[in-house]
């Protein structure tokens, strides 16, 4: 059994040619209809993926650069804000200092004016007091003089006048 399939027994030259023919035809057909297009799409995909990777890489680099730029900008802005804040603070400090100084000067001025006023007032008061004292003392003196003159002085005066009159004679 199967003797027809054993090597040599079934050596059919036609089969050889037919197999060759069939395989070559199959190869040609597949090349045209299947492998060619398949190869094409796989190459396309490879290209596509390569492009995608490239663009992704580019995008990543761009994003990184942008991020760095933003970071720098942020730093700069923060610094600026810091300096502005400091300036502001300094200015406010200065202003406060100035205001305090001005207030102090004003107070000084007011105090001086007040003390000058007080001195002047005292001066006038003293002057008027002196005046009054003088007039009062004159008044008192005149009263006293008047009183003493009335008895003894009149006598003396009379005596004096009498003396003088006698002497002249």
């Amino acid at each position, binding site marked *: 059994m199967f003797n027809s*399939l054993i*090597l040599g027994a079934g050596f059919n030259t036609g089969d050889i040619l037919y197999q060759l023919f069939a395989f070559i035809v*199959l190869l040609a057909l597949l090349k045209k209809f299947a492998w060619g297009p398949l190869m094409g799409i796989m190459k396309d995909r490879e290209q596509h993926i390569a492009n995608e990777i490239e663009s992704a890489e580019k995008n990543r680099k761009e994003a990184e650069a942008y991020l760095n730029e933003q970071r720098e900008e942020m730093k700069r802005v923060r610094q600026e804000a810091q300096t502005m804040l400091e300036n502001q603070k300094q200015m406010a400090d200065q202003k406060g200092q100035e205001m305090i100084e001005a207030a102090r000067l004003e107070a000084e001025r007011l105090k001086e004016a007040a003390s000058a006023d007080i001195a002047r007032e005292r001066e006038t008061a003293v002057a008027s007091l002196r005046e009054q004292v003088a007039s009062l003392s004159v008044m008192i003196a005149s009263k006293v003089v008047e009183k003493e003159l009335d008895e003894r002085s009149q006598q003396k005066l009379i005596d004096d006048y009498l003396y003088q009159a006698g002497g002249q004679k």
Partner: protein
Amino acid sequence: MEHHAPTTDEILGLTFNLSNVLMITIASAIVFILAVVATRSLAMRPTGLQNFIEWVMDFVKGLIGSTMDWQTGGRFLFLGMTLLMYIFVSNMLGLPFAITFDHNLWWKSPTADPTITLTLATMVVVLTHYYGVKMKGAKEYGKGFFTPMKFLFPFKLIEEFSNTLTLGLRLYGNIFAGEILLGLLAGLGAAGIGGALGAFLPMLAWQGFSIFVGTIQAFIFVMLTMVYMAHKVADDH
């Protein structure tokens, strides 16, 4: 159980085993239809059969890549893919059933015939010589027979023939043996109730094993094709 091949009388000095002619045609048609259907709607994002056929392509690419660099090996991609699919389909054809008609065996694996496998093997070896001359020049090609030692020439010569024989007969032997055992088990199964019960499990196991063997043999055939090719066309070796 007596099986004969449906052989014709001489036509133009050639004899045809019509069963082989039939099965070669069927195997070729199946491969062609499978490949064309798989590559009908090609998309950047592969789906379904396209995935499968791309896997085949990558697989053969890997086979070629493991034996020679892509610059020289790229041209053998289509040959490798066609060989792989054709031999695989051929190996599988004989598995599910064998059809005999009028004591003639019609349906079988075309690769279960040494004529067919040796034809394929010879074709491959002739191609290696062709590409060897074409890509390295006749002088370099001739030199290949005398390296590394001059006295190795006879062995190198014998090697070419033994390569052809082993390449073809390995495939034939594996597939033919598988089919014989399947045929015997089928005969046992058809003998009676007991036979059917007894043959069922071995049949199952052997069919599974035959699928494995058929796949491995297709792979080995293509692998060796690329190895022989690399031997002839690559600069190092």
